[in-house]
């Protein structure tokens, strides 16, 4: 007798990104989830597709002056300045904790110079307990490093090729939206050896206190995140997915399952949740459950039936 598919059969949510196996396509965006520890009182890290840590540099970095954050309509500006503990302290203090979980750890990192990018990559390559790395060439809030490499195709290509030469681990490259055509940068980093692309980082923005007539951030400008940027992010994820063969991780303003599904349909293999973690520390769990519920409702057996399913 032919069995009719039961409506309560749980869909297969597992995805593979850059060779990293994930139980579902939901992970935090770097910089919004600390080193994972900060959120363990609220959520079980074993339920996430992956954990992505705060951006690391070779040496500890102090970050920018205050104020560093400002709320805007349906979004927030930040100019933290990549404050982080540095590679050595990360290896010593954070890796042992993260290794206790059965969830892939993706380490986001950046360098002030090309050499630094290479050096950090070499350090991370030898580390057990790390499933892959996310190369940040897109931070808008620091003078050196970051966005300097991410806005020019040949500079992007150069840094990705260098990191690739030092690193056998899966390599995700995180792109900035602050460019004329993101697909050009995406193709350049794909050719230089990236295993996946993550987009988008924050959009450069500015907000002014009308009474003091001063910028609301000490850094003057900051990165805009949150629901305000989501349509821009969906557009760019779609564009990038059309132009590269490697998987795309979609990020930008996701706060619920519907938002996450929008990115998956646009062509993202997985998504990152950022600012929503601040609003609701349990947001990622709600999103995972919501995406599953959507699949059940729609009779979808595998999340891959959703990925890139945009109808034109």
């Amino acid at each position: 007798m032919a069995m009719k598919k039961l409506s309560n059969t749980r869909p297969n949510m597992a995805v593979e990104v850059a060779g990293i196996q994930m139980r579902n396509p939901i992970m935090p965006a770097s910089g919004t989830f600390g080193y994972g520890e900060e959120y363990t009182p609220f959520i079980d890290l074993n339920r996430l597709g992956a954990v992505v840590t705060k951006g690391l540099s070779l040496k500890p970095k102090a970050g920018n002056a205050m104020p560093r954050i400002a709320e805007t309509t349906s979004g927030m500006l930040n100019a933290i300045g990549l404050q982080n503990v540095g590679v050595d302290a990360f290896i010593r203090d954070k890796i042992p904790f993260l290794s206790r979980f059965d969830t892939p750890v993706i380490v986001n990192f950046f360098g002030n110079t090309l050499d630094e990018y290479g050096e950090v990559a070499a350090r991370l390559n030898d580390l057990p307990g790390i499933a892959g790395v996310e190369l940040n060439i897109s931070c808008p809030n620091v003078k050196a490093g970051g966005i300097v490499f991410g806005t020019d195709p040949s500079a992007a290509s150069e840094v990705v090729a260098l990191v690739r030469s030092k690193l056998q681990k899966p390599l995700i490259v995180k792109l900035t939206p602050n460019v004329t055509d993101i697909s050009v940068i995406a193709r350049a980093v794909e050719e230089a050896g990236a295993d996946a692309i993550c987009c988008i980082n924050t959009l450069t923005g500015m907000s002014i206190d009308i009474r003091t007539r001063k910028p609301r951030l000490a850094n003057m400008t900051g990165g805009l995140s949150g629901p305000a940027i989501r349509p821009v992010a969906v557009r760019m994820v779609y564009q990038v997915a059309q132009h590269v063969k490697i998987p795309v991780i979609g990020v930008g303003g996701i706060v619920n399952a519907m938002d996450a599904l929008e990115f998956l349909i646009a062509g993202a293999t997985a998504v990152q949740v950022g600012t929503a973690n601040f609003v609701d520390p349990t947001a990622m769990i709600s999103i995972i459950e919501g995406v599953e519920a959507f699949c059940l409702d729609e009779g979808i057996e595998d999340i891959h039936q959703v990925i890139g399913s945009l109808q034109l």
Partner: protein
Amino acid sequence: MQNYKTIILSNQEISPGYFRMRILAPGFGAQARSGQFLMFRVQRSLPPLLRRPFGIFRVGVLPPDCEGMEPKEFVEILYKVVGSGTGIMCELHGGDHVELLGPLGTGFFSSAPKKEKILVGGGIGLVPLYMLASELVEQSSVRLLMGGRTRDDILAVTEFERLGVETYVSTDDGSLGEEGLVTEVLKRKLVKYRDAEVYACGPMPMLKAVRDICYNRGVALQVSLEAHMACGVGACLGCVVKGAAHTEETPQYLCCCKAGPVFKAESLDWGKIDSDDASCGGYA
């Protein structure tokens, strides 16, 4: 700490522009320590996007509505209506659904039981001092020096008196209590009570003045800083303040939400603190 999806029990204006909100929160009181705070989600829909941090005023238990029901454990916050978030909050009523995350942060540090305790509150900065006072009165004599711009900014003083706290009120315009700054009252009290320990919460200029007074007299001081925050749990690094070891070459930034909001005065770099510290560009 946990995320409570709960309801408001009551929300009343206690002075022009100041409200007291009582929120149902089973188990919250058992975890909460004086000086800690919570992150309040103003409403389920957006905006406002970010949660707002509020100091815990007090925790307590109400008797059950009728036989067979659970007693109601609650947490109380006092807040001043200053922007869009608190503007929405003050329109909420008992029974409305809200979310709160807490208790969060490092509270007041314990200290020698016998010493005289002087609490200095500026306006809404009074909030974390109530729970502290209720603990300190068990072992020490406690004095509250409460300052505000006008009488409207003087809150809950009789509640402190009911704990057995001796209270001194000062206002800038003399509309209630003594006319002048609360720091002038502090200077006088420290002449009499040289061994006192001081706890302060209020606007940064007041805290700096209190710090200078205590520093010059060798008096121990703990301060509770108010900061705008995005996450409240040490992840976003948006609410930092400069620590005592801070230099341009080796900066030391401490998260108000995690290392604080209560700091021993000596752990902060007062020379480099300005009104931008432990603040943000503001909420939308």
